[in-house]
């Protein structure tokens, strides 16, 4: 067993700030969704033919609702105004935190060094998938770098999913629509942008679930410690 230094201070701090931001954004986002619990495609809302609605259920008062339950939202009762406040404040924290992470990742070479898959890794991607499915994780020298599947997942979240959700969020601003009409066209209109924002949020939840599951099965305390103190224990590879 050897302790190696795995995560820089910037990565660790921005990681936890990001966790806080995404939790608040998700919960307040559901509050905002509940104000009009239907999604549409295109420029405007065709109320008779929504693209998506949650299944109807009964509230405690016996009313029918298609909203998220309020114990999931922020605040934990119907309050769109305060939900928007949480959302629009933490959107700023999220974006600024993300910019710090990106700038440091580029400047320090973290992305190039640690996130871009190496050629040998890409060649053995099939074997990696099989090992993951059998819940067998790299040990020894191999465990010092991110696994190829891990790298691809992180790259997609950092450079695809999160930018999409931010831009889709921008597109819900009528002022930014006036400033950047081409951006709205790119997303197919304001109601499409709202739908894409919602779908992207679901993908973040999916990533979160898989991420936490992998953290748990590949060594919960070791992983947690590495994201708090930076130090990660490498298990010796046994030749058997």
């Amino acid at each position, binding site marked *: 067993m050897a302790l190696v230094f795995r995560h820089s201070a910037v990565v660790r701090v921005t990681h936890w700030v990001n966790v806080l931001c995404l939790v608040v954004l998700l919960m307040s986002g559901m509050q905002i969704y509940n104000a009009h619990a239907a999604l549409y495609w295109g420029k405007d809302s065709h109320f008779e033919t929504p693209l998506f609605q949650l299944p109807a259920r009964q509230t405690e008062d016996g009313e029918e609702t298609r909203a998220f339950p309020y114990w999931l939202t922020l605040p934990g009762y119907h309050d769109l105004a305060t939900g928007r406040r949480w959302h629009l404040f933490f959107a*700023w924290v999220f974006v600024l935190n993300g910019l710090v992470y990106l700038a440091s990742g580029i400047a320090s070479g973290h992305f190039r060094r640690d996130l871009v898959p190496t050629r040998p890794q890409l060649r053995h991607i099939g074997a990696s998938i099989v090992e993951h499915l059998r819940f067998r994780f790299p040990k020894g020298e191999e465990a010092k770098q991110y696994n190829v599947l891990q790298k691809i997942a992180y790259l997609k979240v950092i450079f695809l999913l999160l930018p999409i959700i931010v831009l889709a969020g921008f597109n819900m601003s009528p*002022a930014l629509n006036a400033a950047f009409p081409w951006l709205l066209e790119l997303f197919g209109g304001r109601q499409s942008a709202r739908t894409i924002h919602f779908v992207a949020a679901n993908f973040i939840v999916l990533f979160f679930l898989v991420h936490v599951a992998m953290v748990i099965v590949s060594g919960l305390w070791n992983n947690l410690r590495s994201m708090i103190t930076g130090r990660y224990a490498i298990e010796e590879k046994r030749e058997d």
Partner: protein
Amino acid sequence: MKTDRRRFLASIAALGLAGCEALSTQDWVLKLLGVGEWLNYRLHRLLIPDGKLAREYGEADISPWFKPNGADDIPDPDYQALVKRNFEGWKLEIGGLVEKPLQLSLAELRALPSRTQITRHDCVEGWSCIGKWQGVPLGALLKQAGLSPKANFIVFHCADLHGSDQAPYYESIDLVDAFHPQTILAYQMNGQPLPVAHGAPLRLRVERQLGYKMAKYVMKVEAVESFAELGEGKGGYWEDRGYDWYAGI
């Protein structure tokens, strides 16, 4: 040991949830969260040219049904009487910090140069509808009345009363939006006189902000230095109930 840890984690989670609840009602928290609104307002005013137009759509894009929100009628007998006689005798007042206060009838407003625009209306709830609006540019009216250099905001006083305390609807915008070419007092919607459900006789259009800024049933336009003395002092009916004054996002 295990159960202790589990109980500890559960109490942390419960504390977190209760904390969020408690935080959402704290004045200082709401003020701190309001920094987001301030940043959005400042950044938008800095980055977006003052006269930059909102996207305008074609006739074919007009929504088959435009959802009326907030008040869709006013039970007040005086208002009902005005509706019955097609707002004959009604006058829009323009006052406050202006050189010559104006009183304009609907016919006089209709005789002024107008602007017609097909724009998207975005409700704070999340839905959007596209409609065609015709009306008098607010900037032209303010020029005619001679806006005082002391004026910072334009306030719209409306005929509709809301909530259990029957508070009057009002709204306010800054001078950038007041003089924006698409900011009009609309008397026509989709080629017809503005229906009661959409704010007859006159509704404000502020195309780069959300729907709640676009006051319906406008009776009086007032130029002010500050809106601190109006309503609860936040600049609008919904603002007094926690919504952002700047609704550009």
